[in-house]
Structure formats: C-alpha cells, structure tokens
C-alpha cells in the first residue's frame, strides 16, 4: 500500500490534517487541527488510537445494574412510574452518547462506536431496556478497533442482539417449529459475509441460513421472576437442551456445529469475502462512497489482505488506511455527505455550543418524566435522518446521499441557521422563552483567526477572517464566488476595509453570525 509521503509540492498541511481529523472524529476544532499540523501524520494517527473514558454522570446511576423491575400490572401509578423511568433512561443513553461525542478528545473511538452501532444493528424498537442496550454499546466501546471475529461472536450471544433478532426464541424442538432464521440470515447477509461476492456469486444458500440457525440455537436471555416477564439479565446463557446438536452442513462443512463453529466456519470458508465485505464498509465510512472504481477496489483488496494477515484485528487496517496516499488524494477529499451526528454534533462541537439542556444532569427535584420530555437533541437528530438507538431497519442507516435528501436538508439548514443567528429555542418545554445552544461569535472568530483579532482593521483582516472560517468549516477551499458571497454577508455590502472586530459600533457579533449563516447554507458545508 502506497504511503502518504509529504513533499514540497504536496505537503502535510492544514487541509490534510483537517481531512484526517474530520474523517476520524466528529467536528474537529481549530486548535486540534493546528496541533495535528504541527505534530505530523504519524503522531496524529497514534493519537487517534487513544481510548478515553467518558464522563458518565448522566447514566452512572443505572448502568451495569439489573434493569428496573417492571410491575406486573399493565396500568396504574406503579406501571407509569416504571414506564417514564424506562423511557427516560433510553433518552438519557442517547443524550449521554451525544455529549460524549462532543466532549471526545482527538480519538477515533466514537467514530468506531458509531460504525459498529450501524453495523451490528439493534434498536429500542425491540430491545426495551436501556440497561440491556448499554451492555452492547459498552461492547462496541471496549472493542472499538480490536478483533472483528471475536466481536462478531460476542455480538451473536449478546442479550440485546438475542432479543432484537429473535435468537433467544430460536431453539430445538421435535417438530422444528422453533428454528428462527432471523439472526442467521442477517449474520450472513449484513454482519459478516454479505449476500454475494465481488463476482456477483451467492456467498451462501437458503439451506446454509437454515443450518446456521440450527447451530445458533440454545442461547437465551434469562427472564427475571420479579419482572413481569421482561427480559432482564445483562448476560445471556447457553441452555444445552435447547441446542440442536445434530450434524448439519454449513458452507459445505459437516459437523455438529454450535454458535462458535458457525462464526469459525464463516471466517474460514468465506475469509476473503468477509474481509472484502467489511473493508468495503470501512472504505465507505472513511474514504469515499465510490467503491466501484478499479482504484477503489484495488485499495479495498489491499485492506482485506491486511485484515486477513492481522487475523481480523481492525487497528492495523485503519492505521494503513489513514496513512495511505489514496486516503489523502484529492479524489477522496470533501466528498462524504455528513451524517446526522456529523452535522448536528459536529457543528455544536466546533462552535463549542453552550447551554444545552439535554446535557445537564437531571436535577433531583424534577419529575421522573423530565428526561423523557427533555428529548430535544435526539429528536432534532432524528429529523436529520439519524435517531440514535433507533436505526430504520436491521441494515442500519443507509448513509451516503440519503443523508442529504430534501426531508433531511430542511431540519439541517434550519438548525444551522438558528445556531448561527442564536435563535434556537427549546421545543415544548419550560425553556420556551429562553434561547438555547448559544456560543460567543467574537471569541470563536478570534480563536479561528487570531490575526484578524490582532490587527485593528483593514480589508485584509475581513478577508482573512472569512478565509480562516471557511478553511475550518467547509469541506474544501471556498471558490471566488463563495468568497464574494461570504464577504458580502460579513460586510453587509460595506467595503471590506471598514471591518474591525473590536469596534462594537460595527455590530461585529451580528455580522459574524450572518457570515456563519451564509456559510452553513453552502453545499460545501454539507460535506466533509
């Protein structure tokens, strides 16, 4: 794989560092990009593989504990108390993760947690309890870039997954009535090997699906006797008498297979297909949506080779990817449409937005319904096409151009405009009268463009400010027509030499807001 080697003609630059950080994390800030420029590629990639421990205060009260006891009565005060607490915790988990993505230091961790969440899909639509969901989330967090094969096995027997794809109800019986193909099919089709190989040939048959389902029998999520039938346990159990230990043929191999054997067989008999399938997905996530070109396919092939040689360790694959010449080529820069998380959280992170009710720990005096009602940011992100822990279906978020369909663009443009102008209000809550999601435009401008802050006035400083903000916020250099548009937004038609950020009479705050609003409405802001 050809490495990226800086040359005088193609140096390690602000644009290159920004490209790397935008792809590997969400919403990199000015100071982080500058540090990456200084430290160089290798040191920055090393930094990306640093795990970090998030602030747990929003959820620490209930995680890694047995889920709430569900009352037997389907109605009444006790039931509704339980209901609001459960829904509140589900919302709280999403809010906590959103805040974690914003508070993340320079690290690949959250990007990979998102990758696995969109890959090994589960949803609160079936998995009721936030406690159960957190267990799987933690698994992704702890295995962000470790071994894919081991992770696949862990996910296969994870309680949330056993609930979501019916694995817990897949068991042996005399009449075969309880062989549920659901998980086996998605394991093959979506999680590991894919339906067809690169030549379009089927990777498995319907008989393979059925036999894999047989082999996967026996795993359950124990129900708690005190919980009105809710699946409660945070650990699954293997129950031998529910397991079909007959001899089955799977991908051409005969044996009395169990779950571990199924995973082994897939990774052995469909090694190349699986490696290619996952590396293609990584390519789409980190490099480009164009996976069909000869160049892309050759690159994916090389990634797959590394993946196989590394015995399914993910880190070596990504290390190679992030330091390759292909990753930094112009063809692969600024071409990915932003996901809901990239858009909403990226914007909040880079502007260091304050006053976010979703991120405040629940005050003790509030009712149990508080956090459920305070579901502002998750719903905003849903409108942008991405509701955390509620993917559209088992294939996860489709990504790519679906992120920028008209119905996703409307709330995006609205959100960004409101943030820029400082006109966001809380939906349907006591905060109605107060503005939320605030930031200080002057301080932000001065951080991004210190020169503009230092020099008292002059046309250079206005242009310099626009250029610096565009460099940070847009997916590539603003062209001449965009510069004119942006400068006009900043100056309200006045000549650029009149600009002075420190002169309050010129309303610099309002004008920087107008500039940002114009910038956020450009197609170049919708990409990264």
């Amino acid at each position, binding site marked *: 794989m050809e490495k990226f080697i800086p040359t005088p003609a193609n140096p390690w630059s602000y644009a290159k560092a920004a490209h790397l950080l935008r792809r590997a994390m969400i919403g990199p800030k000015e100071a982080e990009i500058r540090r990456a420029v200084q430290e160089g590629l290798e040191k920055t990639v090393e930094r990306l593989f640093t795990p970090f421990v998030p602030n747990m205060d929003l959820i620490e009260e209930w995680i890694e504990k047995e889920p709430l006891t569900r009352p037997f009565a389907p109605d009444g005060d006790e039931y509704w108390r339980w209901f609001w607490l459960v829904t509140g915790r589900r919302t709280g988990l999403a809010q906590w993760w959103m805040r974690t993505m914003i508070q993340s230091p320079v690290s690949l961790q959250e990007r990979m947690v998102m990758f696995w969440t969109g890959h090994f899909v589960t949803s609160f639509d079936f998995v009721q309890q936030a406690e159960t969901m957190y267990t799987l989330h933690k698994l992704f967090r702890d295995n962000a870039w470790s071994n894919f094969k081991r992770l696949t096995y862990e996910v296969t027997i994870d309680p949330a997954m056993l609930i979501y794809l019916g694995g817990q109800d897949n068991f042996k019986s005399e009449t*075969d*009535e309880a062989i549920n193909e*659901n998980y086996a099919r998605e394991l093959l089709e979506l999680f590991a090997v894919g339906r067809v190989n690169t030549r*379009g040939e089927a990777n498995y048959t*319907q008989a393979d699906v059925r036999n894999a389902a047989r082999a996967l029998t026996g795993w359950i999520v124990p129900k708690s006797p005190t919980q009105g039938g809710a699946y409660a346990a945070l650990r699954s159990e293997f129950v031998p008498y529910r397991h079909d230990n007959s001899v089955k043929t799977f991908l051409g191999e005969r044996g009395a297979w169990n779950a571990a054997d199924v995973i082994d067989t897939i990774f052995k008999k469909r090694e190349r297909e699986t490696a290619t399938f996952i590396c293609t997905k990584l390519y789409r996530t980190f490099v480009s949506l164009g996976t069909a070109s000869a160049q892309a396919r050759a690159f994916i092939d090389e990634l797959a080779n590394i993946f196989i040689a590394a015995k399914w360790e993910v880190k070596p694959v990504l290390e190679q990817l992030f330091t390759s010449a292909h990753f930094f080529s112009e063809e692969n820069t600024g*071409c990915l449409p932003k996901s809901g998380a990239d858009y909403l959280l990226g914007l909040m992170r880079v502007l260091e937005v304050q006053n976010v009710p979703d991120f405040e720990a629940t005050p003790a005096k509030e009712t149990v319904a508080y956090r459920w009602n305070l579901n502002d940011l998750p719903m905003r992100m849903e409108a942008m096409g991405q509701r955390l822990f509620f993917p559209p279906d088992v*294939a996860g978020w489709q990504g790519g151009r*679906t992120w920028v*369909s008209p119905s996703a663009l409307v709330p995006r443009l609205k959100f960004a405009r409101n943030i820029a102008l400082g006109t966001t209000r809380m939906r349907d809550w006591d905060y109605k009268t107060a503005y939320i999601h605030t930031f200080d435009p002057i301080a932000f401008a001065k951080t991004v463009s210190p020169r503009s802050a230092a020099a008292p006035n002059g046309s250079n400083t206005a242009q310099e400010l626009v250029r610096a903000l565009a460099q940070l916020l847009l997916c590539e250099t603003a062209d001449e027509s965009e510069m004119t548009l942006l400068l006009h937004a900043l100056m309200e038609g006045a000549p650029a030499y009149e600009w002075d950020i420190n002169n309050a009479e010129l309303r610099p705050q309002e004008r920087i807001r107008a500039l940002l609003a114009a910038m956020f409405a*450009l197609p170049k802001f919708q990409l990264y």
Partner: protein
Amino acid sequence: MKRRDFLTLLASTGIAMPSLAAAAPQTRMYAHAASPENPLSGSFSGTLTHSSSDNVLVILRLFGGNDGLNSFVPYNDDEYYYARRKTATQDLSIPAEAVLKIKNSTTMGFHPALKPLHTLYGEGKVCVVQNVGYPEQDLSHFRSNDIWLSGSNADEYKESGWLGRFLEERYPDYPRILPDDPFAVEVGRNLGRTFMGEHTHLGVNIADTSFVPSKPHQSLQKLTASGVEQEYIRQMMMQTSTFLRSATRAESLAKGNRVEYPDEDWARSMAFVARMIGGGMKTQVYLVNMPLWDFHLDQLRDQNYFLTRLANAMFAFQRDIEAFGAAKRVTMLTVSEFGRRVTPTLSGTDHGAGSCLFVVGERVQGGIIGRDPDCSRLDANENLRWTYDFRQIYASMLGQWFGAREADMTTALMQRRYTQLPIFRNHQLRMVGVANDEENSLQSASILAQDGITAVFPQPASDVLTLEYRLTDSLAQHSAVLSLVDMQGRRVLPPQALSFSPTLLNVRSLPSGHYLALLETPHKRYSAPVQIFR
C-alpha cells in the same frame, strides 16, 4: 424522445410546467421549445387538466414482508388451518368465524382488523390481487425490496426504480428545469429507489413543511468527487426549496383535512398526501412507507395492530379524498417485498414468497383477481407459489392508470412486457401477452407436469376469466390459439393467439351458462369447463 413528444406527454399528464419567472435562467430553453409550429406552445402557463391523466397513484409500502395469508384469508381451506396450527405452540390461523366474508367469494375473506377495507370492498372500491410474486423469490428483505422497487429480475442489480425510469423518460429535462410541483413525493425521511431514474432522482421526500430553506448559491462547478457531490447537494437544495414552497402552498389551499384521521404516523402521512392532493399539488405519485412488518414473533398480536393501522389510514384517506372531490383520480396500491411462510415458527413466521396486495380507489374494478392461495403445493422453500408477477401490476398501473402505451413502459419495465390485469373499470384490456419473458409462465407450469389448461378462475366468472396453461413444446406455444365454445360447440369468442400464461378473457358479453375453454395446437386440443354467471 423528441421534444414534441415530450411536450405532448407533459401536457397529457396535467403536471404544471415550471413558471417562467421561477426558472428565469432557463427561459431560453422554453422559448425554443415553444416554437410557433408547436400546437402546445400556448399552454405553458396554466394547469392543463386532462380528463384521464392527472391521475394520482399512492403507493403504501409495507416493508418487512406482510403475511398475505392472514390478511386475505382462505377460510375454507383445511390445508391452511392444518399448516398454521400444525406445529406452533400458538395457533397462527385466523378462525373462519372471525373472517369478514365477502359477497362474491365463498372461500376468501378479510382479516377482522381490515374491517374498514371490507367496507370499501362492499362499495366496489377494492381489488385484491392474489398470489403476487416473481421467479426465484429472494428471502432477504433488502434484496427482495430492491427487486420490487426497481422492477428487476431476481438476478439483476438495478439502482433505479420502475417509476423513476418511467418519469425520467417522460421528463428528460428534469432536474435542469424544475416543474412547480414535484413529479413524485416520498412522505417522510426515507428516499428510496422507487423514484430513482437512470441519471437522476425524480422524487423528493417531504417530512416537515414548517421551514422553507432559501435557494442555494451556485458555486463554480468542479469535476472532482467533491465537486460532483456539491453539485448534487445544490440540486437537492434547489428542489427542497422549490418543492417545499409548493407543498406549503398546497397546505394553505387545502385548509386542513376533511375527515379525521387516527393519531399515528401512517395515518398522518396519508392525511398529508390527501392535503397535497386536495390543495392542488400536481404530483402524480406518492409513496408512503409503513415499515416493520417483519413478525418473527407475536405475529397475531402485532399484525392485527398493523392491519388495523393500515386499514384505518386507508379508509380515512379514501373518505377524505372523496370529500375533496378527487376520488375519481386517486388510487392506492399496497406493496410488500414478500409474504410469509405457511408453517409458522413459534408465534411468528419466517420470510415467504407469493402474497396478496390491495388496490383501492373509486375507479378500481372491485373484486378478486387470481385463484386462491394453495397451501398444499408449495415451492422448494415451503413458501406459497405465485401466479402473477408483481410487474404485471406495474404494467397495469402504467397502462390503465397513467395511460402509457406499451412503448412508454419498456424502460420502466426493463425491456420486458407483462400482461396487464383487469384492475381498473372500463378499461380495454390487451388480452394477449408476449413471449419474451418465459420465466413468467415457468412456475405456474411446473405445478402440473401435463400439458393443457391447468387452471381456470374465478368460477363462475362474470367479467374476466383467467386461464393458466402449460405447453412444453415451444412450437406448439407459438401456434396455439385459445377460444371459448358453448355447449353446442359454437365459438362464442373468436380464437386468440397466445404465448403467455396466464391469459385473460373478457367474458362480459356472454350470457350465464356452461362453456368450454379450448386450447388448440396444430396437433392437439385441450379443454376445460367454464361457468359464467351474471
């Protein structure tokens, strides 16, 4: 397509041309198009309401695979009850007493949750097409969904959708020139491949009309990957801005719905569509997504709930559209990527094949098309066999509802031709299909090994008779003719050449009585009894 054809088609759809003011940069194009010799040059500004072709199709996509057997239930079929009760710890059948009976069938009836649909059926507004599927049914949701939306064969991979290709051919200048109203709208946040053309997406999705973004800035165009994406997004922003403005206008003109809808997502989406139609939006196709029909567990409970939501939403919509005075030009069609397996898995069912679908509207020929599902002769995966290819439904929609000629459908239907079904009232059917899609007849043929007429239904028939047959010898196939004779041996319908099974015969002109269907090849003659009753 020639410019002139394009204009004729455009006019015939009743879709408003872009107003000149809104498309100022392209005015020259129009001046050119509206040349003096063009008879349509005077008709740009307004809405060309054409009697038959401002028709609207609303597609309800039941993603997840709806169980047709438990939607339109064969309540007299012991095999059905045997299979659905055979192994399940729970009985997954719909009890015969609970099934909602209909007047022209003693074997099929509606799931009790479909009561509103049953009411519409009684009014002659529901057409049930049974056993819809396609060759080599794929059991993956995603793949099968792609096949349904693209209209491809099971082994073809197509990014575009059947309606996308159809609209693209009709409107080759889109999106360079935007009409006032979108051609196709997908309600909600999803924007799938149904309206995707070969080159551009012909649809927009609309979820929220509370904010209309301003028109995007036109940057310098670059041919890099980033440049291409930027231009794509700019176009999307342009469409968003333009079409949200028209949706907002339709909202204000409609002044709310005329009837009340249930307070849930699907009904809200249908209510939105009704307001768009009632508010004068010229959009011809709407797609409403109703996901999560994948009931591997607790199917009885969940499907009951989902069918209730579906039927209530459809019913409210139908009444609303009637109150808006638009019922004559609106039809609903349900689609789902497959049915469910006949034998259950515990309290649910796995992915199946053939299933039924519903077409609802005032102009629909109410009744049942197709014979009853056969739970005793299943395919290799133990799923129901299909008799109608889903693309026959598409062909019927394009031909009968949008007035497309065979030639206008070839791109939409991927260069294949499909026999249309008698879905709409007063429609002249082309009775004879074409042979270039032999797969179509394969499956029904393989049920019975012997040559001859393999099925005739419904019996007795009153309007259209469906005949399925098998002829192994392709020469015989091409020279075969089909006719109907009365008991005195007189031909009552002229012999028809055929090469495609099933074939449809219009028997509306015949008096009640017993007849014989005759299938004649140069060497042999096959017959089957036919009953006509009116």
